[in-house]
């Protein structure tokens, strides 16, 4: 099983979740995503080269393609790409607190009062503080 083959199902999951967020009506700016993607990929290249260069992570040369950005195997960039697809989609799909709807471009109104009841202990801030 090569690194590339292991990347594929995870990329597929990320693509599916991103597609669901897209179909569910989120039309977040693609330019914002593209700019963020450039940033994440550049930072990944820098950070991963440090990780591989210092030897903090090593690879079985028989299981990677051998294509590298600097010393970083190209397969490592699948993590960054999957994160760029999966994480904004989760953020847009999960209900926003406070009734503002998900994400920066709200498409769903959360019914009821402005503050939904906090059901988990994670919401540490006062809800009134939230004023996006």
């Amino acid at each position, binding site marked *: 099983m090569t690194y590339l083959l*292991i990347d594929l199902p995870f990329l597929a999951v990320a693509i599916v979740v991103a597609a669901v967020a897209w179909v569910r009506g989120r039309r977040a700016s693609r330019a*914002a995503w593209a700019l963020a993607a450039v940033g994440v990929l550049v930072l990944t290249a820098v950070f991963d080269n440090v990780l591989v260069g*210092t030897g*903090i*992570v090593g*690879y079985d040369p028989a299981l990677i393609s051998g294509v590298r950005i600097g010393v970083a195997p190209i397969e490592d960039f699948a993590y960054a790409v999957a*994160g760029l697809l999966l994480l904004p989609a989760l953020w847009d799909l*999960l209900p926003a*607190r406070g009734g503002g709807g998900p994400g*920066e471009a709200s498409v769903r109104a959360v019914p009821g009062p402005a503050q939904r009841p906090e059901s988990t202990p994670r919401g540490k801030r006062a809800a009134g503080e939230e004023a996006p």
Partner: protein
Amino acid sequence: MSALSFAYLAALLVSLAGVATLDLRFRLFVGRDPRRGIAVLALGVAFFVVWDLIGVGAGIFFRGAPELLTGVLIAPEVPLEELFFLTLLCWTTMVLVTGMRRLLGARRVAGASGAPPASPDGPEGGVS
């Protein structure tokens, strides 16, 4: 265990502190909606930990440079530091995405005063 054992963990914590500062200062992600932000981070880290475990299980990657690591493992070949690394990857990604949305959204509002409402994709929709 020397002070160098904390080199990688310290670098990750400093990086996380910077990202968290930007997030909270500009209320982008966790600073905007803590419960939703933490849920996204938790789901993202869980997703990547599974990926790591499968990669380690297949013998593709493994840890090295023990002098730079604390030596604490959360699974075979998966150092404690990996949790912080994956959190940093997820958090950085989301601060950049929400930050860019904020920047371009502000520009669009500033440029659209008096103009008809922007299309759902906005004026920059055709870029990507």
